[in-house]
């Protein structure tokens, strides 16, 4: 029971701290999970990767984390805790907005938070990269994926799946 409460508290906090989207809380999520719930970096990166393959909002991978820690109930608790607080905040922000309309300060807050959340996303890349790039082969796969996604119109899911296959063949035959 206490682990569910702990999960609910941790993910609610992450929810309201997720300025600029879920990716900004990846490094914090990774360290909370490692220190409080014993989820190692490899498991975290695998869950994240599965999330990238799925349709819909990209942070649904929190379900895998919740499931790993406390089964289906854990998955449900994590899903609610991660999506409900920020949604409620946004709901009321929408109401305030329609009452007060555009203010120069809203623009300011958005402009100001944007570079901060990009910095946090960069930390997310760093955190995920530290766990996923552990050999020259994985480094090459990551760089090729980065290049293909930036420079071509190939669907990222296809890039990720093919990379998984190449990685598997590489490991199998070496």
């Amino acid at each position, binding site marked *: 029971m206490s682990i569910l409460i702990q999960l609910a508290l941790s993910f609610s906090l992450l929810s*309201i*701290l*997720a300025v*600029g*989207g*879920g*990716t900004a809380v990846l*490094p*914090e999520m990774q*360290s909370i999970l490692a220190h409080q719930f014993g989820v190692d970096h490899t498991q975290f990166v695998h869950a*994240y*990767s*599965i999330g990238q*393959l*799925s*349709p*819909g*909002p*990209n942070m649904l*991978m929190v*379900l*895998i984390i919740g*499931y790993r820690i406390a089964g289906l109930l854990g998955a449900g608790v994590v899903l609610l805790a991660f999506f409900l607080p*920020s*949604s409620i905040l*946004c*709901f009321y*922000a*929408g109401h305030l907005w329609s009452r007060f309309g555009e203010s*120069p300060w809203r623009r*300011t807050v*958005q402009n*100001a938070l944007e*570079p*901060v959340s*990009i*910095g946090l996303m*960069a*930390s*997310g*890349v*760093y955190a*995920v990269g530290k766990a*996923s*790039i552990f050999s020259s082969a*994985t480094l090459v*796969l*990551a760089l*090729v*994926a*980065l290049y293909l*996604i930036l420079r071509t119109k190939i669907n990222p899911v296809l890039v*990720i799946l093919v*990379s*998984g*296959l*190449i*990685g*598997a063949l590489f*490991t199998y035959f070496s």
Partner: protein
Amino acid sequence: MESSNNSPVSLRDLFVQFFIVGAVSFGGGIIAYERILLVDKRKWLSPDEFMAYLAISQTMPGLNSVNLAVLAGDKLRGAIGAVVAVLGLILPGSVFVLVIGILYTSKSNHYLSNLILPGIAAAATGLLGAITYRIGEEHWRHVKSLFLIVSTFFLMSIAKLSLPLVLLVMAPIAIYLYRPSKKQ
């Protein structure tokens, strides 16, 4: 804000339409799918309303795509509409992720998943790098925002401060740097 279309939207339709967005948006770009649904396909929002909602979604914490569903659902059918839109949006992906997650967690498939996941994780890192680069595109060139990006990264990843602390330090600095100018 005046609504662009006044005929009531059924909750079922709201759910089904967001469910479709949640089911087809493989590989990201979910905001674009939402725009197609809300502005082009159903004309539930005017382009102006959509941009305003997107701006609120981006300013508030949480996932932009989910926040957008909250605001659109609320506008169309109130609080219950917000709940229905979000549920529709996250249901397909949740089932997908959970099924794969359970397979991954079960012991029997460990050999195969250990074989295939390193390559998938490496490419997912590349994807995250690409998304970050693209979102930051115009920011890398401005001294002000580059300073904020680099300091945030430093505090988070090198100094290893906790996220609340990083935001407590960086948000006031950033808001000060971007404060509204008196001339406007």
